[in-house]
């Protein structure tokens, strides 16, 4: 299918006794920003390496742009930054990109465009080894962008970037997707993924736990209400939201209502003689969902005592 840019099937990589990636089947669709999430050592980089043909799967297959991963004709249509930028330390940033551009059959105009895109033009003449961590990272992203590849794979692109750099990177990724390119990015910065990704895959201990749209994962919006007396408040809330949609939590009540329902709810509570201390719309952040998933997952990655019940 042409709208599946990446499709893996039972992708597995074993290093000795350790299953680094365990039967991962994931899909990335054309034009989307896909967030690949997981804690350290989850298997993100290993999966991406298999997609790029850098390492060979122990089992399973990966297809990219409709062809088996790692074929030269596929690789030429993919731009990648995997586990940190790898460049010649003695060459300037520009000469490093010129070298890579030659492999791709691109001219110096593609190099200059990529440098400008990551805001590195000023320092392009400096040697790579003299770059700061963030500058090295940006050069790595620049090299992944050269030649407008159909799929851009970025393994923790904001690694080492300052807050402004991170914001720039997010804007860059969004603009790439707007321009029709597909972006697959791995991260453990959930706030970032939440903001820019359309879909996410959550991996832990080598297993793909879930693959879904970001809003699906975060679930329904809720209203959090602190009001006294609580019993009276619950009675009103049940009338407004339905019996099943009211939960008692240590922080007050949690109602399965959207934020737009708040004014009517408050009116009813006040009419019933209940004192309202606080009403706030809460959306579970991806971070909460992520911690729930990665700490209760049926893997041995987390010791039992550390699990949240």
């Amino acid at each position, binding site marked *: 299918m042409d709208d599946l840019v990446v499709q893996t099937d039972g992708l597995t990589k074993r290093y000795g006794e350790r299953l680094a990636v365990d039967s991962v089947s994931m899909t990335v669709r054309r034009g989307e920003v896909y967030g690949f999430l997981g804690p350290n050592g989850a298997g993100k980089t290993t999966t991406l*390496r298999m997609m*790029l*043909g*850098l*390492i*060979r799967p122990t089992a399973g297959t990966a297809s990219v742009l409709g062809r088996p991963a790692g074929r*030269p004709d596929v*690789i*030429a249509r*993919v731009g*990648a930054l*995997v*586990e*940190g*930028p*790898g*460049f*010649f*330390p*003695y*060459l300037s940033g520009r*000469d490093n990109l*010129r*070298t*890579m551009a*030659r*492999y*791709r*059959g691109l001219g110096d105009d593609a190099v200059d465009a990529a440098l400008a895109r990551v805001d590195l033009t000023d320092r392009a003449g400096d040697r790579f080894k003299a770059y700061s961590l963030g500058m090295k990272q940006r050069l790595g992203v620049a*090299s992944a962008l050269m030649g407008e590849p159909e799929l851009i794979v970025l393994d923790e692109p904001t690694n080492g970037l300052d807050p402004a750099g991170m914001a720039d990177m997010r804007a860059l990724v969004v603009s790439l997707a707007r321009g029709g390119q597909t972006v697959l990015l791995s991260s453990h910065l959930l706030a970032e993924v939440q903001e820019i990704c359309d879909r996410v895959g959550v991996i832990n201990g080598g297993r793909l736990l879930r693959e879904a749209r970001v809003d699906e994962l975060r679930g329904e919006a809720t209203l959090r209400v602190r009001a006294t007396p609580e019993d009276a408040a619950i009675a009103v809330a049940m009338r407004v939201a339905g019996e099943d949609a009211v939960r008692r939590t240590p922080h007050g009540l949690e109602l399965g209502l959207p934020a737009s329902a708040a004014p009517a709810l408050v009116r009813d509570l006040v009419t019933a003689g209940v004192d309202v201390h606080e009403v706030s719309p809460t959306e579970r952040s991806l971070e909460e969902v992520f911690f729930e998933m990665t700490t209760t997952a049926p893997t041995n990655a987390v010791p039992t005592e550390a699990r949240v019940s």
Partner: protein
Amino acid sequence: MTAVIDNPMTRSTRAELLRLRKWPAVWVTVAVWVALALMFGYLFPYLSYRTGDLSFAGDGDTRAQLLVEMLPAALPTVLVQGLPMFGGALALVLGAIVAGNGYGWGTWKTVFTQGPSRPTTVGGSLVALTIAVVGILALTLVLFTGVSLVVAGVESQAVTWPAAGALLESFGGGFLVLEMWALLGYTLGTVARGPALAVGLGLVWALVVENLLRGVGALLGPVEAVTEVLPGTAGGSLVGALIDVSANPNETPGILDVLSGGQALVTVTAYCVGLVVLVLVLVRRRDVA
């Protein structure tokens, strides 16, 4: 220039040439090579010629002979006489750093995700290395020609040029020997995924172990049979055949007459071909992280 041939192989070669051309380590290697070659080819012989101290030049030499070997007519000999020892060692270092450093820097990873297949990418790298080897030898020839002309001028000698055939043969043979050592370094750097171990083991092998084995081989038949197929023996014998070592034996270390010229040529060529195949097979399927 719009007429350049553009295919994955030429792209890979041009990319590799770009980064080799701008690599200080390459130029350091070239500079050391040129300095050593000039020192042993002309400077020391000239000093001993001027001072009349013949201890450096070996027992059989007369001053007249020393002078003859510094004139343009002797270029085919002088060009290759340093190759078996320091020439080979430096070529090995060059090959090892070209192949090996990319694993530590992560540059092979980056290069392998650009488009050309691995055999093409590494093939381009080998072509670039070969161009560097030819370039170094050509540079040496140009320098040597200049120096020998200066010697002829200063010593008021008539300039006679060597036969073109002899010069060509010497250049070709010298190239093969250097190429073999460079490919050996490249292979070691690829196997070790780094330059340090490759350079260390390669040099110990080329400069120490082979000589020891040849020493033992003189006493033990089976060991002798093994030493005959070693790269040092093949390279040394090829150079030995080019400069007619049997006429003045024991003059330069590393130059041998163990194998005939024909045998040596076949062995050196076989090494070159075999090492290229080995590198391509190694790189084709391995995990590069």
